[in-house]
């Protein structure tokens, strides 16, 4: 059996597509897991799950220790071959702990997963996006975490039915407790969903100057502004939901315009899958040009306003 779990519904639907494909190759079924509720069960079935296990618990908040304990029980009862987990921060800490509990292998943030000789082979970015590690499991269950947007969900099929198994599981309680959950200061930007992103980096001298990027994003009807690490993490000119890179968000818009971004590999790792990449930088030697389709060498304070007005003219 192939198990699929994420605390994010959308990500679960994406994993189900891959889970379905793997389960067919392995001649198994794919099961989605809900913990503490079964409200998404119908949707999971309509998007490819053969059945759904809804673990009945009184847990309402995620704690890796407790969720790993529940998944450990489910995996052992079903003698699972493959466990796919959504690679958000909760998912990654869950996967690692579960791997220790099941004393098995785990590969995180896989961008490719397939079956070879009945074992799972994974591909993931390593060395800050400079290489891809190809790894194969020699143990099972095989735990794989998959980041958002790596795969599309299957189209909805209302006729696809399956069983919803409601079951109580004992689990180990964690002695830690959650005392506060606070929304982080964000501007409600979802860079992962953007079709066009205009991004800014250290080339900007003042926080106010970021309006140049906003204006360009506006005429492109992309309206999405991204940034490199220093702008969000160090200077805090933009909230972290704008941050694109290895520790920030990974994006693949059809057009990515990098303004005043030097092109550190950590940033490239977050945007390398973009359709068309444009770079604007005054340093002709900047690394970003190596990762760009088109580049203009020049002062962004001159280039961006000109580009904004030229695009405005072109698009009418």
């Amino acid at each position: 059996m192939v198990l699929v779990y994420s605390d994010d519904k959308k990500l679960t639907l994406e994993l189900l597509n891959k889970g379905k494909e793997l389960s067919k190759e392995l001649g198994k079924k794919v099961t989605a897991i809900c913990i503490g509720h079964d409200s998404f069960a119908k949707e999971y079935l309509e998007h490819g799950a053969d059945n759904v296990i809804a673990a009945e618990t009184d847990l309402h908040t995620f704690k890796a220790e407790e969720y790993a304990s529940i998944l450990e029980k489910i995996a052992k009862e079903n003698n699972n071959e493959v466990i796919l987990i959504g690679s958000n921060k909760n998912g990654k800490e869950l996967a690692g702990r579960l791997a220790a509990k099941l004393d098995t292998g785990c590969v995180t943030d896989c961008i490719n997963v397939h079956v070879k000789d009945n074992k799972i082979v994974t591909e993931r970015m390593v060395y800050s996006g400079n290489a891809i590690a190809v790894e194969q499991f020699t143990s099972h269950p095989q735990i794989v975490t998959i980041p958002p947007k790596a795969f599309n969900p299957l189209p909805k099929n209302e006729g696809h039915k399956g069983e919803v198994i409601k079951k109580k599981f004992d689990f180990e309680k964690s002695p830690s407790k959650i005392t506060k959950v606070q929304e982080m200061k964000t501007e409600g930007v979802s860079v992962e969903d953007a079709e066009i992103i205009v991004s800014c980096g250290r080339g900007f001298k003042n926080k106010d100057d970021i309006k140049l990027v906003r204006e360009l994003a506006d005429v492109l009807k992309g309206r999405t502004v991204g940034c490199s690490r220093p702008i969000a993490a160090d200077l805090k000119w933009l909230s972290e939901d704008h941050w694109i890179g290895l520790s920030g968000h990974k994006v693949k818009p059809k057009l990515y315009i990098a303004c005043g971004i030097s092109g550190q590999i950590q940033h490239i790792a977050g945007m390398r899958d973009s359709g068309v990449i444009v770079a604007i930088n005054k340093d002709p030697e900047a690394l970003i040009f190596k990762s760009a389709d088109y580049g203009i060498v020049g002062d962004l304070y001159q280039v961006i306003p000109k580009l904004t007005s030229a695009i405005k003219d072109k698009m009418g």
Partner: protein
Amino acid sequence: MNIIVCAKQVVDVSEIKVDSSTKKPILAGVPQKISDIDKNALEEAIKIKEKHGGKITVVTVGQSDAKERIKELLAMGADEGVLVVPPQNADYSVVSHILAGAIKKIGSYNIVLCGEASIDMFSGQMGPRVAGLLNIPQITYAQHVNVEKDKVISERNLGDKAVTIESPYPVLITVTKEINQPRLPSLMQILASSSKPIHEWPANDVASGKLEPKIKTIDIKGVPMARKNVIFKDDLDQSVTKLVDELAKVGVLR
């Protein structure tokens, strides 16, 4: 407050060159260093020790040349170092068993601190794995740690929200790069660190029977990066016009 910090020796990823024909990374000859975020973990440990006293032990699973790197950590403020050389095919599982075994051998501890991930492999699974093997609570992606006598209060950064968790000891915490700014040791500290002990323990001693990998690496392959690399160098107006024409042609302006 006894603290154990797990620190990994890695290649300096910013120094990696890519072979232009195979697109594979050239790892030979790349300088080694302690993974950046592990230094944040040690810095946090030192801050806790400054306030509450205690002892800091750093544990490294790596080749014997990692001893030089451990010396840097002792100069920063760790009290003792432990180095365990892993068997040749050590995967995430093997390393986690060695770390957990070494931590058990050290014995008395309140907090285990790690970086959220190492900058070379960035798997992020080592902290949670070790916590799982030790069967202690885990707090990952901590951007703030406040140590009290009987409990630690820590804030996790989940990107869209911050979750505050309280845990009794012992506990394992992984920290983000934003939590602090690691200090640079003074010359006096560097000199004084040479008298601090570094223990070398055989992997078999700390993780006997658990050194069988669960995953094998088949290949480290290059990343295809087929970009056009067209750079417009005419005067600015012409460059902008050409760029806009190109963008319209490839269909991204609509």
